[in-house]
């Protein structure tokens, strides 16, 4: 199997073709140029013509370079020695420490049998009311953070990483600015979390193909540790770069683009990564939080749009706050019946009133006279934004619920809230009376 091919037929973008026999689809190869070597994998077979994508990019690749097929697909080490380490998109160390070759596992493995999945049941507490109260994060959930470039999504991810109660954090960075990479590293180190963290980082200056490998690497390792009983939180940032890398490859391969140049299988490709989020019966779990920047703040852009259909809700980050509209944790219903009896009703009721506040605000901005009701809404909205939405608020869920009732009590009569009478009787702040 160690035959070396030394005639490259074509070089287009990062894809080369060679004539070879007995090569398997998906197989890994080494392409050796004069001064450097790079990995490549087989992405298409057509007779004896084999197409490979070169991980480090085809810049400087010569038709005389040597291609050697390795007989196995892309692999990554999954040993406990990974903890505290930083790797690049091909699994090579980025931290000047030795390379790891133990317990190699294939990346992009098969999907979990739906019949073996269990209903998620554990809340992950973060201390952020907009998450804990209104859109609870649940173990094994997959949630993107939709935001615009410039929003503090990496800061939010880092804060969740530090505060969330999990065993292991795996960070997959795609197209990360070098500063952001250092920010994550420093923050996790300062917070004392680095020894339970593994990082796979592709920075903006690294070759595009490596970007596409990062989620598979991170998730293959996460899955392995989850099977060993660990509660793993995977943070991916930024999935938009991943999708753009895929678009670049698809166009190089002459695929028919479907929507704004993205390949037709964008949904499937994203889904096969996000669906790795799982809670294993009798073992651990994988939870995925992924930053997705929306080009032009447009949620109908193919990347956030397809992501939204795959993930179990989404957090919108806007103006440095998690927006109550659009933000949704689909799995919250699984856990918020067990937190406190007023959790669900309060969560829906407060958002409904906040929606009315927005309408009143709109009327006000158009110069209309504010009715008594509008005034109440304006007061409510201001309090809600200050005490609940501000990202610096860090309180446990129970306190946040009490705070919710206090805000309602400050602003409204009980029957204006649209909440059920029995809850109002039980929870309406006593000093205000009904």
């Amino acid at each position, binding site marked *: 199997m160690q035959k070396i091919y030394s005639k490259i037929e074509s070089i287009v973008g990062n894809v080369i073709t060679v004539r070879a026999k007995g090569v398997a689809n998906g197989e890994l190869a080494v392409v050796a140029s004069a001064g450097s070597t790079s990995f490549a994998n087989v992405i298409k077979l057509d007779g004896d013509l084999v197409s490979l994508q070169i991980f480090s990019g085809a810049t400087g690749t010569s038709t005389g370079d040597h291609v050697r097929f390795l007989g196995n697909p892309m692999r990554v080490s999954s040993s406990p020695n990974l903890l505290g380490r930083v790797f690049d998109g091909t699994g090579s160390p980025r931290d000047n420490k030795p390379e790891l070759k133990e317990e190699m596992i294939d990346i992009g493995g098969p999907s979990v*049998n739906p019949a073996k999945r269990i209903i998620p049941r554990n809340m992950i507490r973060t201390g952020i009311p907009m998450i804990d109260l209104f859109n609870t994060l649940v173990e094994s959930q997959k949630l993107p953070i939709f935001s615009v470039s410039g929003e503090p999504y990496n800061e939010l991810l880092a804060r969740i990483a530090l505060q969330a109660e999990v065993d292991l954090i795996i960070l997959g960075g795609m197209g990360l600015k070098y500063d952001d990479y250092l920010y994550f590293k420093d923050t996790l180190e300062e917070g004392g979390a680095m020894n339970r963290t593994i990082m796979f980082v592709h920075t903006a200056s690294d070759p595009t193909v490596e970007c596409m490998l990062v989620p598979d690497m991170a998730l293959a390792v996460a899955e392995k540790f989850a099977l060993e009983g660990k509660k793993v939180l995977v943070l991916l940032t930024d999935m938009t770069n991943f999708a753009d890398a895929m678009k670049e490859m698809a166009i190089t391969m002459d695929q028919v683009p479907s929507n704004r140049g993205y390949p*037709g299988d964008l949904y*499937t490709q994203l889904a096969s990564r996000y669906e790795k989020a799982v809670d294993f019966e009798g073992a651990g779990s994988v939870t995925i939080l992924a930053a997705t920047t929306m080009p032009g703040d447009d949620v109908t852009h193919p990347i956030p749009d397809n992501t939204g259909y795959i993930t179990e809700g989404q957090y919108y980050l806007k103006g440095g706050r998690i927006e109550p509209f659009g933000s949704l944790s689909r799995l919250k219903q699984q856990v918020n019946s067990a937190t406190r009896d007023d959790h669900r009703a309060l969560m*829906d009721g407060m958002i409904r009133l906040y929606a009315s506040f927005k309408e009143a605000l709109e*009327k006000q901005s158009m110069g*209309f006279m504010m009715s008594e009701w509008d005034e109440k809404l304006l007061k409510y909205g201001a309090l809600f934004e200050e005490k609940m939405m501000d990202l610096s608020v860090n309180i446990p869920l129970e306190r946040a619920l009490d705070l919710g009732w206090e805000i309602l009590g400050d602003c409204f009569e009980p029957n204006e809230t649209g909440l059920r009478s029995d809850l109002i009787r039980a929870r309406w702040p006593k000093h205000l009376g009904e």
Partner: protein
Amino acid sequence: MTRNTGRVLGVNGNMVNVEFDGAIAKNEVGYIRQGDIRLKGEVIRINGNIAALQVFEMTGGIVVGDEVEFTGEMLSVELGPGLLTQIYDGLQNPLPELARQCGFFLQRGVYLQALPNLDWEFTPTVSVGDIVKAGDTIATVPEGLFTHQIMVPFDLVGSFTVTSINKAGTYKTRDIICTIEDSKKKKIELSMVFSWPVKKAIQLYSERLRPVEPMTTKIRIIDTLLPVAKGGTYCTPGPFGAGKTVLQHATSRNAEVDIVIIAACGERAGEVVEILKEFPELIDPKTGRSLMERTIIICNTSSMPVASREASVYTAVTIAEYYRQMGLDILLLADSTSRWAQAMREMSGRLEEIPGEEAFPAYLESRIAEFYERAGIVRLHDGKIGSVTIGGTVSPAGGNFEEPVTQATLKVVGAFHGLSRERSDARKYPAIDPLTSWSKYTGIIKQSDVEQMRRVLHGSHEVNQMMKVVGEEGTSVNDYVTYQMGELLDSCYLQQNTFDPIDTSVAPERQKHVFAKLRHLMNMPLTFETKSDVRRVFNNLRQLLLDWNNTLWESDEFKAAEAALDEAFKALM
């Protein structure tokens, strides 16, 4: 039948080109041999002696020159007793059994028998010498709640004479229980199972009827305002997060049909798991048995291979048609047809076909129409009436209903339940937009009364729009009453709380009762001095109605809440 073979020529994603010998058919199934495992694929294009196979598995590891075996059969499903309660993937592999054999992950190339070889209490209904043809019942076995008819395989052409039939007793699914012979004395042995190609509609009935009888879902906005008929079709397009799946789950729990088939096509695995784990625990109030006993799940989630996603909706509708042949009412819920369309788009791209709008293939519309046309209410040869109702969700890109899949679907369905982002953002569930959605069927409430409600809703919406321009102070008290009336109908009747044990399903009688009460209110001449009076009164009415919604039908609390409401009405006179 001679089996043809071939060799792999090329691999591109999940499409494999195969050079073959002999004759093969389009949609024939072939297996690619890879050492011990065999990967299933379907022929989707033939050109000269090269066939394009869409492979239902990951294609990593396939090598040029790998051997391919063709089966001579089209992609088919097994039909017989034991389908109910099963959980299949898109190719009818039983997932729980697969889990027992392979553990957590879906291994490639493992194909199991769809129907377990169980014991059945067999009662013959024909005798030796009887003449039978395809679709005729030859025996019955009890399957859970139903009498499962064992039928002559649907693909047999002509008349046959029964030459032997087993006596009543216990037999296994795959035992030979009957032999028949055709006019040329050729004998055919029958078991309780036979197969049928999924892409062909089963058309063994005397006539198709017009769908008129409502299929109630116990969801107020649907049954009252946007009804669906038995044998009808409807679609639920909506942007992500608008509650399509929650709505479908509620429908699958509460729909007044015999059997529900859920095709989870390219959607989240977690949602299927909720059904898998909850349904066996939930009791169907009509039968007193577990809901799972009337349910079949076809589950091909988004991370499972894309080609079997394409097959999954056909698998589901074929099983639905099979049970329809027994005179049962079936509801097929497909979530989501957009993923199915995307699977077609992916294959079309690999085949390098000329793309249509948004790169969907040109045959998208005809495929969607063909699929929905497999719904219908029919009179069978034995006089029984059976129906297949199809409800499909659509996930339009960007929530924009102008895209090809939504538009192609709207052309062929009988009801449109469009979900709106604004309503879901405001937590108004179910987020079906009452103004833009439509239905061509008649529901449980008199048409003219429904129209009255629709007028109020429209009026209320207009006043609301106007208020955004002229403000509340520029609105007359009467208009303001209209606005509040619409809001009241919306919040207390059209909105419904799926997670409340009582409000989650509202029986038609209760809907009629509450609707009559609301109609009474709509007909009342209401006069107020000021707008804040209006707001106060309607806030009070809303509270009373919401509390009423949360009481058990005809319980003392229900009556007390109703009395309180009547009292409030009287005060308005």
